[in-house]
């Protein structure tokens, strides 16, 4: 196991100084790997400066793609074009049909939903599909910090229901910060304590910040490796 990781750190584009500040803060807070959402058309050489910054702070950079398809067809097209260029693919499910397609597609790693309870489609049917395809449910913590009053109450109620459904169907949970600046960043233990608000026990909260995200990264790095042939089959030696 790699330690703690945050698969959704929203680093500011075009601000290397703030990027470095956030990465240093992540390292201080105890994170060993961070996922950073990158533009779909980014070239490999454009990621290099970010990788160097991460290496300088002792953090393992995980490249992440956030897809926001409007239709299932759009999702399939984007996955076909982009899946092999990123280590983690998250889908922001804007409609039930997109959520269903994302949950049953084995190329999708994270199912992400907006904080508004009307836009959260993670129900039993969704969880059953996700458990078959090994997609995980992403719980973004930033809205919990940002929202106040009734919207936060509604979000907590939705998360409580989703955590219960995910547990029933064996869907992995991944907690991520969604932080846009260093003031929104919290230590893994603090996020785990916040997760107890929606009835996620502390050990499971810590697992959602360590083992669960790392298993996704490890699995996908294996698949993206040139030695990968098929699940369970790797090139050991070339003649």
């Amino acid at each position, binding site marked *: 196991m790699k330690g703690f990781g945050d698969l959704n750190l929203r680093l500011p584009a075009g601000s290397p100084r703030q990027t470095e500040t956030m990465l240093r803060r992540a390292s201080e*807070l105890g994170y060993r790997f961070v996922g950073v959402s990158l533009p779909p058309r980014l070239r490999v050489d454009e990621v290099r400066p970010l990788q160097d910054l991460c290496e300088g702070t002792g953090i393992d950079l995980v490249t992440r793609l956030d897809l926001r398809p409007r239709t299932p067809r759009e999702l399939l097209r984007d996955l076909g074009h982009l899946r092999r260029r990123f280590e983690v693919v998250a889908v922001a499910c804007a409609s039930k049909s997109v959520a269903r397609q994302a949950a049953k597609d084995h190329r999708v790693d994270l199912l992400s939903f907006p904080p508004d309870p009307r836009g959260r489609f993670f129900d039993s049917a969704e969880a059953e599909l996700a458990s078959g395809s090994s997609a995980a449910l992403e719980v973004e913590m930033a809205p*919990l*910090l*940002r929202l*106040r009053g009734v919207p936060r109450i509604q979000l907590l109620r939705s998360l409580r229901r989703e955590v219960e459904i995910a547990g029933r169907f064996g869907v992995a949970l991944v907690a991520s910060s969604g932080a846009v*600046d*260093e*003031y*929104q*960043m*919290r*230590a893994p*233990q*603090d*996020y785990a*304590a*916040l997760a*107890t*608000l929606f009835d996620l026990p*502390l050990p499971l909260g810590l697992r959602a910040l360590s083992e669960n995200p790392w298993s996704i990264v490890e699995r996908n790095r294996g698949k993206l490796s040139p030695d990968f042939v098929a699940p369970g089959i790797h090139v050991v030696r070339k003649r």
Partner: protein
Amino acid sequence: MIRHVRWRYLALRALSPQPVSRGDLTDAVWDAVLRLFGEHGASRANLGLVEHDPDGNRAVLRCPHTALDMVRASLASITEIRGKPVAIHVVGVSGTLKSLREKFP
């Protein structure tokens, strides 16, 4: 029979663009506990600010061990003090002040 309280001491560091006064920190913590857990929860938190260093934005908070997760969640939910962005980080937790000072000087 009155049960012996097992205290937990939390070393805190406030990340803020300006020094956070003792009063503001206390108010922010109580406000966060009240917002998340209500008056019933706040009464169980039994919070006390033991030490405060405004220059280093550091503090030591005390709570019963049964309320530790509740207090941690409340501290994590603090996002601003007097309109300025702030993050309260728990640097460490210990069962005695002495060991807290040894581990997190």
